[in-house]
């Protein structure tokens, strides 16, 4: 699925969090989105996902105008996301967390009678195996460690089988080994899945992304192949200037 935003502008009070941002991500493309803290990366993801309405500009999914659609409608069009801070079902078990994501995809949640859902339980099992956390199935999400929560966070989004996946700092706070396994899981995504990844771990971004866009103070300052972006003097200035 193709994702295209154009002219996106968002104001927080007097501050322009996003200023006429254009972004076009082709079907199956892996796009990195980087920039110093406060550059507007999460804001951009929130606008794409529908949680924030832009003051101006549009969001299109496969050419269809999605600017005024609520988040759940965009999700049904195939948009998935993870959150910067883990956004889980705290009092439910890990298996129940994943089961909700499975039901989101297969629908059928308007049934008022208990159903023996072999389809759901089988897939939950497969998903937990694939994520390497089958031993956590019966633990409550709120009791997991940070790294385990991040893995579940990613798995919830993957389970919904999105066509466009927005990842907001999926690796934040992960140990080296956890990073490697999360990266492997993301590299194993089907080729047709469009990916937009915000990440401070530049090694992970360069490993995943074919193209990189750079935001600084709400403005897109660079867009291109990783090496070209790395060499761009404006990017270097934005990063070095912020250190």
């Amino acid at each position, binding site marked *: 699925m193709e994702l295209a935003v154009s002219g996106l502008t968002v104001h927080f009070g007097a501050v322009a969090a996003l200023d006429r941002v254009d972004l076009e991500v082709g079907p199956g493309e892996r796009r990195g989105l980087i920039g110093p803290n406060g550059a507007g990366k999460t804001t951009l993801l929130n606008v794409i996902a529908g949680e924030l309405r832009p003051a101006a500009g549009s969001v299109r999914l496969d050419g269809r105008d999605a600017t005024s659609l609520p988040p759940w409608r965009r999700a049904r069009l195939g948009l998935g996301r993870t959150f910067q801070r883990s956004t889980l079902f705290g009092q439910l078990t890990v298996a129940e967390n994943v089961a909700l994501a499975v039901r989101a995809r297969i629908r059928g949640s308007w049934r008022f*009678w208990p159903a023996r859902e072999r389809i759901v339980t089988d897939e939950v099992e497969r998903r937990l195996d694939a994520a390497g956390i089958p031993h956590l199935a019966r633990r409550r999400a709120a009791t997991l460690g940070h790294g385990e929560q991040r893995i579940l966070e990613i798995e919830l989004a993957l389970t919904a089988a999105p066509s466009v996946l927005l990842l907001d700092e999926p690796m934040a706070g992960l140990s080296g080994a956890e990073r490697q396994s999360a990266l492997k899981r993301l590299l194993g995504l089907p080729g047709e899945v469009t990916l937009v990844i915000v990440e401070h771990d530049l090694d992970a971004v360069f490993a995943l992304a074919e193209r990189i866009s750079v935001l600084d103070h709400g403005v897109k300052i660079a867009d291109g192949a990783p090496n070209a972006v790395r060499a761009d003097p404006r990017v270097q200035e934005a990063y070095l200037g912020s250190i």
Partner: protein
Amino acid sequence: MIPGQFRAASRPVFLAFLSLALASIPLWAPRFWIYIATQALIFAIFAMSLDLLVGYAGLPSFGHAAFYGVGAYACALLALGHVDGLVPLLLVGALASGLAALPIGALSLRTSGIYFLMLTLAFAQMLWGLAVNWTSLTRGTDGLIGIPRPTLPGLDMFNISLYERGPFFTLCLVVAITLFVLLEALARSPFGKTLEGIRENDRRMRALGFPTFRYRLAAFVIAGAVAGISGSLAAMSNGFATPDLLYWTVSGLALIAVVVGGSRSLVGPVLGAFVVLIAQLGLSTYIDRWELVLGALFIAFVLFLPRGLVGLVRRT
């Protein structure tokens, strides 16, 4: 593992024992206590319906009495209009309250937390005001009186009258058990699981593609309809319907029953309803300020047993 197995096996046993103990009440209890138990059962249905909102959907409604009262008035009006069938009288209560819950839910559910609580309270008090002032329909504070007990085909053959306390109690018990089974099924259904997800994290549910507002509204309407059935039974039991049924203290008592018994379990509100009703009747005989004692009990539960009576046996 042992406690889990014990729990899994003991729950149906406990429920069967509870049902049998309740069913035996007309055989041995004094007439006054049959009456109290009837009131408690009706209140238990009401509290169960509130638990669907408070416990499962995470919606702290402080205006649930609205649907208790609307059900009671709908049943009363139909009964006074010479309809005496049990099923239509119960259904009209459910229908009227479900219909009332639709706009109230649609507006209240645009907010959450304390704002939701205050809005539901405000709507319930508005309906209370309507019941007081729309005298041509409700006869104001006098209320609708002289509501006959319903009839059920076949009972006459056995010479059973629902005007007698024992049979009417048994009727309430059958309705309560039926609704318990249905609500329990609902809680375990995909819909119930979705409600729990929304309670835990509305934002994530929306990001996954669930139109969460619609699910919450459906839960609000279902809870309203079940409360309407309990209101119908209350009208039949008392023989009258007055604005008191809609007053905020009724909502408050139901919330206390849910918290004292334990939310998210359905058994909890039933136990809580019996505790609250028996406390109310027992205490008010001896102490004028019985609300004070009930309030202290409520505070003690919130502080020391936040998961209610069922929290004593349920570990998870």
